[in-house]
Structures are given as structure tokens and as C-alpha cells.
């Protein structure tokens, strides 16, 4: 059998980098997806290389240069392209460093939530039976909460000033940002992982009936091998699209928590917090609110369009 296929075999599938290039090339066919990818790449680039950009210190407060409108220079002739906030900090620098803060925590939270959701979903789908019932029930309990209600409950019951928060500060020696950050990740995991689990479970239930799974079972592969090597890689298509959308939601959620002053502690720039800082100044705070609002919208729009483009391409073949 193997001899025959060796001669008539199709050219070997391109590996590694080549395949990546091919996928990117495919994306070019969808203008919408391409536009989304450009937006996302822009913000990722900013987040990674923000240190190398000629920006001012995002935390430096300049007296006498508070709430400057955009395109004005302060007394020391330092140009503020996007103006300054109520403490005289450069808006452009804060916006760019904010990209790093937002992307760092949202990617981390999404990865954690996705990993847990995938484990829940793939085991529930593959194993079935009572385990499936339990996992599905737990998922339904957390999905019964409107997301913000769940976040508010978790953060008020286990927030930085609760026993868990105090324990993390004192016993684990984490600083304020890390404590808030990990609580945000926990809260997002509780609200997101069940949704991921539900999707993964659905896909796995479909894949489970395929012949190659039966073949692997007959070969005597362990359930762990089947789940990790046979099931998850074959479920990747819809999951990549979903992960893009999910990351967008997580970014909105983190900014939202910042807006509700339940997010990361000041003074680190956080787009949501920047909006709520500007809000209390009414008309004068407009400049402080509009830029972060546009930044977060453009990033989420980029991710949604990218997901749309990817879905379009995956449906094509």
C-alpha cells in the first residue's frame, strides 16, 4: 500500500513557514479580512514596540499643561499631538502604552479561558456520560448570569480588598497590578470558558463519529492522545475564528471593567479607565474620552473583521 502511494503521491504539503505564508495569501482574497488584519497588526506592533517609539513618558505629569486640546505644545515647547489629560500626561503616549496593557491582559485572559474551556469541552464531548452532564451543568450555571453581573459578583466578593485579594497580596507577595490582573483573568475565565466549552463540545461530538477516531481507538491509542492529537487539531478551523471574536469580547470586557473602576489600578494607562477619567470633566474631558473610545473600537473592529474574513475563506473550500 505504501509503495503505491509513494509513487502517485501528491506533492508533499508545504510545511511550517510556507504553509503560514499560504494562509496569509488566502486572507488577501477577502478585503474585509485584510483590513481587519491591518488594524490588528497595527495595534500589536504598537504594543510590542512601544518602548522604541519616540513617545513621552505616559506617567509623567506636567503641571500647567493639563487638558490641552490636541495638536498643542506646552510651555516647554513639547508637542502633544493628542493633547493631555487632567494630570498633564501626554494622551498619545498613554494611548500607545495602553495598547500594551490592554493587549497583554486580554491575550493572557483569553489564553487561560480558552485552555480551560477547551479541556472542559473536549473531555465532555469525547467522554460523554455523567462527566458531560456535570460539565454542561456547571457551564449552564455560569452562563445563566448576564456577563457583567457575574463579573461584578466575582470582583466584589473576591476583589483586591477581600480575603482572597489580601491573601494574594500578603502571602504571594504580588503587587497591586498583578492582584487585580489575576482577579480579572479569573473573572473572565468564569464567564468565557463555559462558552468555549460549549462550542468545543459541539465540534467534538461531530468529529467523534469520524473514521479516523475509530481507527485511533482500534490502534489502542490512549484517550489523552485522541483528544490532543486527533480531536483538537481537527477542530482548529472554527476555533481560530471564534478565538478572534472572543479576544474582541475580552478586550471590551477588560476596558469595561476599567471604565467601571473595577479593573487595573492606576496609574497604568487603561483605555476604559481613561474614558471614565474624562467623563467626569464633561465637555472639557471630551478629548480625553474620544481617543481611547476610538482606539478600543478600532482594535475590536479589526478582530471582528479578521474573524469574518477567516470565516469567509474557510467556508470557501
Amino acid at each position, binding site marked *: 500500500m505504501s509503495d503505491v502511494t509513494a509513487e502517485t503521491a501528491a506533492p508533499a504539503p508545504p510545511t511550517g513557514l510556507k504553509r503560514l505564508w499560504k494562509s496569509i495569501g488566502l486572507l488577501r482574497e477577502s478585503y*474585509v479580512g485584510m483590513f481587519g488584519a491591518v488594524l490588528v497588526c497595527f495595534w500589536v506592533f504598537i504594543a510590542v514596540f512601544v518602548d522604541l517609539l519616540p513617545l513621552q513618558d505616559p506617567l509623567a505629569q506636567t503641571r500647567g499643561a493639563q487638558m490641552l486640546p490636541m495638536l498643542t505644545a506646552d510651555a516647554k515647547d513639547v508637542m502633544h499631538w493628542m493633547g493631555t489629560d487632567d494630570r498633564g500626561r501626554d494622551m498619545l503616549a498613554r494611548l500607545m502604552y495602553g495598547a500594551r496593557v490592554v493587549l497583554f491582559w486580554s491575550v493572557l485572559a483569553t489564553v487561560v479561558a480558552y485552555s480551560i474551556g477547551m479541556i472542559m469541552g473536549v473531555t465532555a464531548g469525547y467522554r460523554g456520560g455523567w462527566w458531560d452532564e456535570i460539565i454542561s*451543568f456547571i457551564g*449552564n*450555571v455560569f*452562563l*445563566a*448570569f*448576564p*456577563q*457583567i*453581573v457575574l463579573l*461584578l*459578583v*466575582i*470582583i*466584589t*466578593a*473576591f476583589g483586591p480588598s*477581600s*480575603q482572597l485579594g489580601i491573601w494574594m497580596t500578603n502571602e504571594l507577595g504580588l503587587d497591586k497590578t498583578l492582584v487585580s490582573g489575576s482577579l480579572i483573568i479569573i473573572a473572565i475565565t468564569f464567564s468565557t470558558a463555559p462558552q468555549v466549552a460549549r462550542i468545543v463540545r459541539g465540534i467534538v461530538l461531530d468529529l467523534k463519529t469520524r473514521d479516523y477516531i475509530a481507527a485511533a481507538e482500534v490502534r489502542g491509542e490512549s484517550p489523552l492522545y485522541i483528544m490532543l492529537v486527533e480531536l483538537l487539531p481537527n477542530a482548529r478551523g472554527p476555533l481560530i475564528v471564534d478565538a478572534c471574536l472572543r479576544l*474582541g469580547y475580552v478586550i*471590551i470586557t477588560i*476596558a*469595561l471593567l476599567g*471604565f*467601571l*473602576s*473595577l479593573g487595573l489600578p492606576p496609574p497604568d494607562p487603561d483605555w*476604559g479607565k481613561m*474614558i*471614565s477619567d474624562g*467623563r467626569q470633566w*464633561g*465637555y472639557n474631558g*471630551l478629548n480625553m*474620552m*474620544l481617543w*481611547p*473610545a*476610538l482606539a*478600543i*473600537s478600532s482594535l*475590536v*473592529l479589526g*478582530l*471582528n*473583521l479578521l474573524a*469574518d474574513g477567516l470565516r469567509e475563506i474557510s467556508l470557501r473550500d
Partner: protein
Amino acid sequence: MLQLVGKRLVQMILIMITVSVLLFLSFEADKLNVASKVLSQYSTLDQRLIWLENNGYNRPMPVRYFEWVWNAMRGDFGESIQFATPVSKLLKEHLLNTAVLGGLVFFITVSISLVLGVLSGIAEGSSRDRGITVLAVLTTSIPEFASATILVAIFVFWLDWLPGTSPFTNGLNWNDVNQLVLPVMVLVIYNFGYYTRMTRASMAEVMTSQYVRTAILKGLPHGRVIKRHALRNALIAPFTVMILQLNYLLSGVIVTEVFFSYKGFGKLLYEAAMFGDIYVIEACAMVAVFIAVMSQLISDIGYTYLNPRIRFS
């Protein structure tokens, strides 16, 4: 059908019980924390211990839990720490306001998205379809607090047409109805995209089905095919999804209420969370979950009822 409803009811009750246990454990397992929240953080340990004894907190936890659930089922959620009024009274006022806002938003969103979804679904791939799809993605990408910011900038600061907050200091009345415009607009803009895409997908699927093709080939006028054959079947799925989405709508309503200082359920919950008003948080969370679970039940029943294939099987 009855069996399905029964099964759903049992599941719903189980979820409510689990949620109530979780909420009780998160907020009231630590007695001293409850006392410090009620008596403020400046109370002494002795005061807290006396308060705990007087209010029956030294009884075993299961007893306290059942008492709490029993009272909650009769509508007694205790007294708000922040406002020193019964939580049920607060809830009633605020829920009414939220029902007005949410109901209005739901009605407008559903109308807009059904029209747009059908328009784009009957001509899949056309430029109109693409335009509507891109618009739907664009609006769902702007979170409520960002679109609220942008809309306030336009309609309040630039055009000066509308008030920037919606406190309704004289209660809900027709004279202040312009205060409702911005919150409703923000929520409709954020939510209509998803509904539109659901309707579009369902409509597009139905349009490619055999019976629609038969109807067209039979020579029926196009409008009649759409109204009589396609629409009825295409609206079943989006209808149930829209009711299911009430959960998400409620999330958005909370943010919008906080942004515009609208005295609704969401603002009550948010302020309770910031203040540490645990009885209000518990009550709000229970009510929110109850609404969510009920909407799920209604959506299930609605789907079964609307879909004859399930109804008669």
C-alpha cells in the same frame, strides 16, 4: 411538548438553587465580613460579634441559607446597607425603569434588525447584503461605553440637541422623554448587528431551500414567495435567539445605565458593588439570573411551539 417543558423547568430550578448556594457562600460564608460591611469598617470587633449574635448569624450555615432562600422567595431580601430601605422596594423601582428602557430597546432593535436582516438575506452576496453585513460588524465592534462617548460628543456637545445624562429626577414622565433617546440609541446600535446577522443567515438559508425554489418556479410573484413561504420559516430561529439574547441585552443595559446615570437595575447593582452593599448585590444577581433562565425557558417553549416539526413529533 409538556415533557420538554417539564424537563426545562427542573433544569431551571436546579440552576437557580446552585446559583443561590454560590451567591450565599461567596457573600455570607464569612460572618465577620458581613458584620463589617453592615456596621462599616470602623466598627470594633466587639460590636461586630454582638451584631452577629443579635441577628442570628451564629446559627449553622445551612439554617441561615434556608432562611435566606425562604425570605427571598417571599420577596424579602433584607435591608440595603447603603440606603437603609428594604431591598425589595429598591428593586421594584429600579426594575421598572430598566423594563422601560430594555423593552423600548428590544422593540426597536428587533424591528430594525428584522427589516435589515430580511433585506440582506433575500439577496445574498449583493452589494446591499454586503453593505448591511459590514455595517452590522462595525456597530457591534463599538462597545456601549465607547459609542456612548461618541454619541454624547455629537448630540450633546456639538449639536446640543439632547441632554447628556438621564437621571429622571422627577420620575419617568413624558416631558423628560428626550433623556431616553441617547441610552436607547446606544443600546440599539450595539445590539442590532447580531440580530441582523442571525436573521440574514436564517433568511439566506431558507431562500436556497427546495420549497422556495418550487414556489418561484411555480410562477408565484416574488413578494408573495417571500411573505408566504420564506419569511414564516426564516423567522423561527432568529426569534428564539433574540429572546435568548435578553441576557446579553441586560449586560449592555447595565453599562448604559451607569454611563447615563439612569436609575435602573444596573445602576443599583453597580452602586451596590462599589459600596459593598451585599444584600442588594445578592438580590440583584438572583433577579438577573432568574430573568435569564426564564427567557431561556420562554425561548425553548416558543421554538417548540413555532416549529411544527417539533410540535407534532
